[in-house]
């Protein structure tokens, strides 16, 4: 069974594994150079500090850290998950594969266990290296995107559960649609929609704290808080759109005396992180159950 799975999926497995190895090498080399700078600047005074010494590297590090997890999970979803069942259905090999001696549940269980193992094997080291890199960049004091809320998605459990979600989503879509190409395309679209929805709304999952300031005053942000939204309020407390060509005096004359800042303070970070992990976890369990029920039903009929 293991040998057969390997023979059938080796191109996809090797492709994604090669991508992960490349990514891990890049992340590890960044980690090495940031730690080196941190150590050197710790021993003797660096000109401008470790953050400045990193210079041009910071935006490259930010870019790799932002992209690695969505791309990895996307590849797993489209190239590992989606074709797994849809290919068997489309080429009608399921009639042979799920014979009398291997029940469909056992077949699916075996494949799923192997691919889940592969996903964990690839995503756990990446998640750990990237988190070490985040902490090293924070130590350096470089002005990258490594604030606590900006790295919410990089807390090690999240890239791992996202990769698992990708796999399960692909398999479930393949089981429902049963055509390889359609399943791959649909998986990609659903995956992008889910990821975008979650990452743009996660800060609103808990009601944000509203801070009020008189119009025209500089707003002081609590340290390390995340800004959810900003705007102007009229006297009744309703958000209003700022009129064009209107200075402070004119705003006050129109009854717009306050600006607001909706923020999530730092002490909610852990709760929001866990909420995201739980959301992905629930989707993984739900989709796995859906797939299993679907595969069992198929064979009873046909």
């Amino acid at each position, binding site marked *: 069974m293991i040998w057969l799975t390997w023979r059938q999926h080796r191109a996809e497995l090797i492709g994604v594994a090669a991508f992960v190895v490349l990514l891990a090498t890049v992340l590890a080399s960044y980690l090495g150079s940031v730690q080196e700078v941190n150590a050197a600047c710790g021993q003797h005074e660096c000109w401008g500090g470790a953050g400045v010494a990193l210079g041009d590297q910071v935006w490259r590090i930010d870019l790799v850290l932002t992209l690695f997890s969505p791309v990895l999970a996307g590849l797993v979803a489209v190239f590992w998950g989606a074709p797994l069942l849809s290919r068997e259905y489309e080429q009608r090999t399921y009639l042979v594969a799920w014979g009398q001696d291997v029940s469909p549940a056992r077949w699916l269980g075996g494949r799923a266990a192997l691919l889940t193992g592969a996903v964990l094997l690839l995503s756990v080291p990446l998640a750990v290296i990237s988190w070490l890199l985040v902490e090293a960049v924070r130590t350096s004091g470089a002005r990258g995107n490594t604030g606590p809320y900006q790295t919410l998605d990089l807390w090690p459990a999240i890239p791992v559960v996202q990769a698992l979600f990708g796999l399960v989503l692909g398999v479930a879509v393949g089981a429902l649609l049963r055509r390889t190409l359609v399943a791959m*395309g649909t998986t990609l679209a659903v995956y992008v929609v889910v990821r975008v929805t979650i990452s743009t709304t996660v*800060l609103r999952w808990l009601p944000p704290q509203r801070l009020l300031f008189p119009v025209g005053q500089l707003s002081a942000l609590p340290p390390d808080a995340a800004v959810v939204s900003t705007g102007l309020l009229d006297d009744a407390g309703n958000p209003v759109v700022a009129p064009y060509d209107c200075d402070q005096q004119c705003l006050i004359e129109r009854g717009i005396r306050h600006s607001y800042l909706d923020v999530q303070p730092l002490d909610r970070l852990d709760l929001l992180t866990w909420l995201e992990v739980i959301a992905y976890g629930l989707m993984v369990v739900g989709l796995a159950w859906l797939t299993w029920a679907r595969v069992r039903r198929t064979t009873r009929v046909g």
Partner: protein
Amino acid sequence: MTWLTWRVERGKVLAAAALVLLAAAVLLTLNMDGPVVVMGARIALTIGPPAFAVVVAVFWGAPLVAREYEQRTYLFLWSRDRPATRWLALRVAHLLLPIVVLTFAVNIAARLTFDHMLGMAVHEYPYDLWLPLELATVIAGFALGVLVGVLARNVVLSMGITLIAYVVLRFVVGVVARPYLLPPVRLLDQVRPMDALFVAGGYLDRDGHELTTSAVQQMCIGQHPVIAAQDPCLVARGITHSFLDIQPVDRLSDLRLVESGGYVVLAVALLAVAWLVLRRREFRR
């Protein structure tokens, strides 16, 4: 587009059109009231148009021929009277129409989102949003997918190879090669002009040898004036000028033209190779 092509390809065409419209609708109705939303819109604008090109290459180009081989439908499709080469030429020609229309829609949507994000501020559109360049990159991706499909004859495999090859191609051309598509202009002891494309920078010693900024920082730590001759430390080390290689802003349209031309030539070459491979296989049959 003939009736048959439409019947076979309508799923892809309709799905892509729906996705483009949906993405455009979401981006254009976003309420830009917080940094998360603005950042999201910025990311969507940066990766949206290239992602569309990737989808066309991977989901339209790669399976076009590979699918016929994998499902063995080519045995019915291609015969002595209806050769594979003719089938390929017609199918590609038919699909080019929706590709052009959808790329046009993506381009317009990206420009409108850009306006929506920046409000009334006067702005230049990003380099890659020039319509002919975007069209050329999308068509080159499609051609790449078709060729990979012809060679690999396996749907999932050819999609994977196309994905990797196209991402590498776009990265190499857009990031590595772009500043060198035309010979850059060298400025001595000058500040970088606004909007110019940076190619390289550093210092020159008396003999005209180039030195990197980091090498010079190790010799003379700290901020240096733009005119190297005003810095005693630099002069003492024999450094006479700072230099800056750039592509001035009035050349960007020529650069785009060269880049678009390169992609068009590549697309034609890739399709020609795919056609030749099919013709050779035909002779063997």
